[in-house]
C-alpha cells in the first residue's frame, strides 16, 4: 500500500450533526465531560446526534467506504461532507479549504466542478431524457449545447448505455437508472466522488454486475471516493479502507483485513463474522520472517490474497514473498491456520456474548 505517499484530498475533523429543535443551542453548551456523557445529555434533551465527533482523512485516489447499519449516521455524514446537510460543528477540509467557511456561492462552484454524487434512490429528473439528465450538471454551469452533448454522450457510453440516450428515466430498469446517475455524477469530471448506497436498491445479480463495473471505472478514473454501504462484502470488494460507524460514531477505521484480523470491538467482530476470511487476508497479513532455505523463485507480492495461494500451500511448506524481486518474507500453512483459528475463535466469543 502506498497510502502515505498520497496527499490528503479530504479531511473531516470533529464533525457533528445534531438534529432536533434548538440543537445548535444545546450543542453549544460548555463541555467538560466525556463524549459518552455529552451524547447522553443531548439525547436526554430530545436531540438526535446523528453524527458524533467524526474525524478521518481520505487520500487522493483512495476509495474510502463508510459502513454501518441503517440509522448509524452514515448517510448524514456523507451529506455533511458536501454540506447537503449543514453540520452542527466541525471542519471539512477539501483541497486545503474548509468547506464550512465557504459562502453559498463558493460552495455551488465547488459542487459544480469538483464533486459528483450518486444517490440510492437515483434522483433522476423525470422530465429529462437520459442524455439531458447526464448533461444537466453541465447545463446549470452554462456549458454550451454542443460541448454538453459531446461530454454527455461520452459519459453515457462509459456506463454502457449507448443507444438509450433518448429514453426517459421511467422507461429504464433500476440498474439502468443508476447507470444514468453514475454518468451524471461523472459528467463534470469531479475530483471527489460520493456514492450513497448506490447499489442497495438493486437486485443481487444486478448489484454484483454494477460493483464490477464500478471497479472497472475506478481502475481507469482513479477518483477520490467516499462510498456508503451497509453491505460488508461490498465494502471488502471495493474499499481501500473502511470506516465502521455505530450510533453516529466511528468505531474503527482500517483496511478490510485489519477489521477482520483485529476488530476493535464486538460490534465490528459481528459485522465481519461471516466474511470469507481467506479472500480478505493477504500474504502481507500473515507474513513471517524467512527461515531456512527459501528461494525467491516463485515469490508473490504482499497484497496477494491467501485464497490464491491455497493450492501451492497444499504442496509446499512455505511460499516466498518478494518485493522488487528481493525476498522479504514467507507465508506458511501454519501461519495461515493460526490467523484463521484466531478469527474464528473471536467469532465464537462474539456469539457467546450475544447469547448471554
Amino acid at each position: 500500500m502506498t497510502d502515505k505517499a498520497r496527499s490528503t484530498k479530504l479531511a473531516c475533523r470533529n464533525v457533528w450533526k445534531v438534529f432536533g429543535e434548538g440543537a445548535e443551542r444545546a450543542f453549544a453548551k460548555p463541555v467538560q465531560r466525556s463524549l459518552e456523557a455529552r451524547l447522553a445529555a443531548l439525547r436526554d434533551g430530545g436531540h438526535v446526534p446523528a453524527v458524533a465527533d467524526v474525524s478521518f482523512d481520505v487520500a487522493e485516489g483512495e476509495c474510502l467506504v463508510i459502513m454501518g447499519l441503517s440509522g448509524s449516521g452514515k448517510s448524514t455524514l456523507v451529506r455533511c461532507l458536501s454540506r447537503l446537510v449543514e453540520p452542527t460543528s466541525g471542519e471539512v477540509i477539501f483541497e486545503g479549504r474548509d468547506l464550512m467557511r465557504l459562502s453559498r456561492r463558493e460552495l455551488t462552484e465547488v459542487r459544480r466542478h469538483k464533486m459528483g454524487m450518486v444517490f440510492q434512490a437515483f434522483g433522476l429528473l423525470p422530465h429529462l431524457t437520459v442524455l439531458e439528465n447526464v448533461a444537466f450538471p453541465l447545463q446549470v454551469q452554462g456549458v454550451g449545447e454542443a460541448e454538453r452533448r459531446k461530454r454527455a454522450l461520452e459519459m453515457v457510453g462509459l456506463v454502457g448505455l449507448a443507444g438509450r440516450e433518448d429514453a426517459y428515466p421511467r422507461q429504464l430498469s433500476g440498474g439502468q437508472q443508476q447507470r444514468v446517475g453514475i454518468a451524471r455524477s461523472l459528467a463534470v469530471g469531479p475530483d471527489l466522488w460520493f456514492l450513497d448506497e448506490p447499489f442497495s436498491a438493486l437486485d443481487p445479480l444486478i448489484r454484483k454486475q454494477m460493483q464490477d463495473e464500478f471497479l472497472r471505472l475506478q481502475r481507469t478514473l482513479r477518483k477520490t471516493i467516499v462510498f456508503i454501504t451497509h453491505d460488508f462484502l461490498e465494502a471488502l470488494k471495493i474499499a481501500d479502507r473502511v470506516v465502521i460507524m455505530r450510533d453516529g460514531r466511528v468505531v474503527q477505521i482500517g483496511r478490510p483485513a485489519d477489521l477482520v484480523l483485529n476488530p476493535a470491538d464486538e460490534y465490528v467482530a459481528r459485522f465481519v463474522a461471516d466474511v470469507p476470511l481467506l479472500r480478505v487476508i493477504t500474504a502481507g497479513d500473515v507474513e513471517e520472517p524467512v527461515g531456512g532455505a527459501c528461494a525467491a523463485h516463485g515469490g508473490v507480492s504482499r497484497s496477494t490474497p491467501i485464497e490464491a495461494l491455497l493450492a501451492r500451500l497444499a504442496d509446499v511448506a512455505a511460499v516466498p514473498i518478494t518485493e522488487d524481486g528481493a525476498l522479504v518474507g514467507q507465508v506458511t500453512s501454519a501461519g495461515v491456520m493460526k490467523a484463521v483459528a484466531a478469527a474464528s475463535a473471536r467469532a465464537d466469543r462474539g456469539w457467546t456474548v450475544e447469547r448471554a
Partner: protein
Amino acid sequence: MSVLDIGRGEAAPMRLRLEPAAVVWICVALLILWCETAGGGVAALHAFPKAWTLPIATWIGDAVAALIGPTQGFFRQITAALTLPLSALQAVLGGAPWVITTAVAVLLAFRAKGARLAAFTAAVAAYVLVGGYWAPTMNTLAAVALATPIAVLIGFGLGVIGYRHAAARHGILVLLDLMQTVPTFAYLIPILVLFGFGPVVGIIASAIYAIGPMANNTMLGLAQVPLAVREAGEMSGCTRRQLFWRVEFPSARSQLLVGVNQTVMAVFAMVIIAAVIGGADDIGFRVLQTMRQAQFGQGLLSGLVIALLAIVIDRTTAGFAAASRAPVRRLSSRTLTVIACALAALYVAAWLQPALDAFPTEWTYSPAEALNRWLLAFVARFGDVMIAIKNSAIFFLMLPLRIGLIKAVSPFGWGFTLTPAMIAGYWAVATIAAGAALLFGGRWRAAFAILGVAWMLFLGTTGVAWPGFVAVVAALAWQVGGARLGAFALAAMAFIAFSGSWGDAMQSLYLCALAVVICVAVGGALGVWAAENDHVSACLRPVLDTLQTIPQFVLLIPVLMLFQVGEFTALIAIVMYAIVPPIRYVEHGVRNVSPEVVEASRQMGCSRLQILRHVKLPMALPSIMLGLNQTILAALSMLAIAALVGTQGLAQAIYVALSKADVGKGLVAGLSIALIAMLSDRMLKAWSRRAQEALGS
C-alpha cells in the same frame, strides 16, 4: 368496554369502575334531562334568547364599510383594468368564425386524450351551435379564459410561499380552509361591495374562489419532489433559482397541471354561479333567467350546455395533466405546419362563405317547446305520484327531524295526534333499546347514541334545548379530538349563537343531516355493491364523474322541474350532489382491503357476507370516515346553492343578504356554515385518524 366493570371472580370483591368518558356523557344526559323537564318551562333554554345576541353582523358591516372608504378606489381600478382584457377576449372568441374555434377545441381534445374526446367535443360544439347557444357560451369561455390565469398565478405564488416558509404555510392553510368552506354566495357579497357590479366582478369572484385548488396542489406537488432529486440538483451545482425552475418545478409538473385542471373547473363553476349577480349574457345567466321564468325546457337545454362544456373542459385539462406523466411526445414541426395551414385554409373558407363564420340562425333548432309540452304531459300524468312522494317525505321524514315528532305528528299529516300513552311508549322503547345495548352488549356508547337519536327525533333539531345540543357536540368533539377540539366546538357554537344565527343554523342542520343520512345509507350500499361487483362499478363511474364535474347549479334544474320550489327539492338536489363521495370512498376502502387478509379469512371459511361484515368493512373504516367527511362538506356547499330553490336557514340568509348587498349578515351566516363545516371536518378526521391508528397502519 363496558361502563361498569364488574369483577366476577368468586373471591374477589365486587368492583365498580367508570370510564371518565362515560362520566362526561352521564353529565350531558343529566343536563339534557334537566333542560327538557325541570327547565321545560324556561323559553331561554329552547330558543337562544334574542337579548343575549351581539350585533356581530353590524360590527362586520361597519368594519367593511370603514375599510371600503379609503380602498374602494383601488379595487374599482382593478375592475376597470380587467374590463379591457375581458372585452378583448369576448371580441376574439365571439368574433372568431365558429369553424376555427371548433377546430381548435377538437384538436386540443385530440391531443389531450385522443379520438373519443375529440369526437365528443365536436358533438358538444354541434349541440351548442344548433341549439343557438354559441354567443353566450363564448362569453362564458371568455370569462373562464380571463379568470383562470389570474387564479393559477396567484394560487401558484401562494403555494410556493407556503412551501418555502413553514410560518406562512399555517396561515395559508387556514385561509384556504375558510375559502373552501365559506359558501360561494357569502363571499360574493363583499366582492360585490368592493369591486362594484358588472361582468368583471363575476370574474374576480371566480378567480379568488379558484385560488385554493392551485395553491393546494402547488404545495403538494413541491413537497412530493423526492429528496434525492432535490439533492442531485444541489450536487449538480444548481443555484437556488436553478434548483427551483429546473429541478423542483418540472418535477412537480404533473401535480401542478392537476391544480390547473381543478382551478379551471372551479372558475367555470363560479362563473356560472356569478350569473346571480348578473351582468353578462353568458350561459349561466341564460339558465338562471329561464329558471326564474319557469321555462323548464329552455332551462334544461341551456343547463345541458353547461354540463357538456364542463365535461369537455375537465377531460381536456385532465388529459393534459395525465399525459405529462408519460414521456413527452413533442409535435414535429411538420405536423404543426400542417395544422397551421389547415386552420388558415378554414379561415379563408369562413371569409368566403359567411355560413362558416357566423352560424346561420335558420340552421338552429330548439326542442324547448316540445320539451315543455312533454314535461307538462308528464306532470299531468304523474303529478299525483310526485306530490305523494314529496308529501310523504315531508310529513314522515323532514318535519319530524325539523320540529320533532311531538309537533309533526298531527291529524293533518299522520292522521292522529300523540297521546301521553304513545309518548310514554316511545320513551319506553328507546330506554329498553338503550338498556339492552348496555346490559347485553356492554356497549355504553351505543346506549347513549340510541337515547340521543330518540331525543333528537322527539323534539327535532329546532326543538331541542340548545344547552343540551351544545353539550352533546362539545362532548363528542372532546372525545374524538381532545380538549383543543372541544374548545373549538364550544367557540364555534358560541359564535353561531351570539351572532343570532342559532335558529337558522338548526334549520340548515336538519336539512343537511337528513341529506347526509340518505347519502350515507344509499351511497354506502352502492359503494359496497360497486366494490363487490365490477359491472356495477363500471356503470356507476361515468355517472359519478358527471355528477362531480358539472357545476352544482345545473343539478337544480331537473329536480326543480319535477318537484317545484321547496325544501324537498333542495333535499333531493343536495343528495344528488353529496352522494358521490360516500360511493367513491366506500368502494375505494372496501376494494383496497389487503388481499392477504381477505384470502386468510376465506381460507378460514368465512362466507362472502361474513368477510364483508367482519373483515372488509372494519378495515375500510378510516376510508369510510373520510367519505362521510366529504359528504358533509359537499352537502353544506350544495346547501348554499340550493337556497336558490327555497330553503330556510343559513343559506337562505346569505342569499337574502346577497340581494340586499348586506355584507355583515351575509358574512355572519357564511362564517356560521364554514364553522359547522370545519367542526365536522376536524371531528371526522380525528375520528378517522383514531380508527386508522387502531388498525395499526
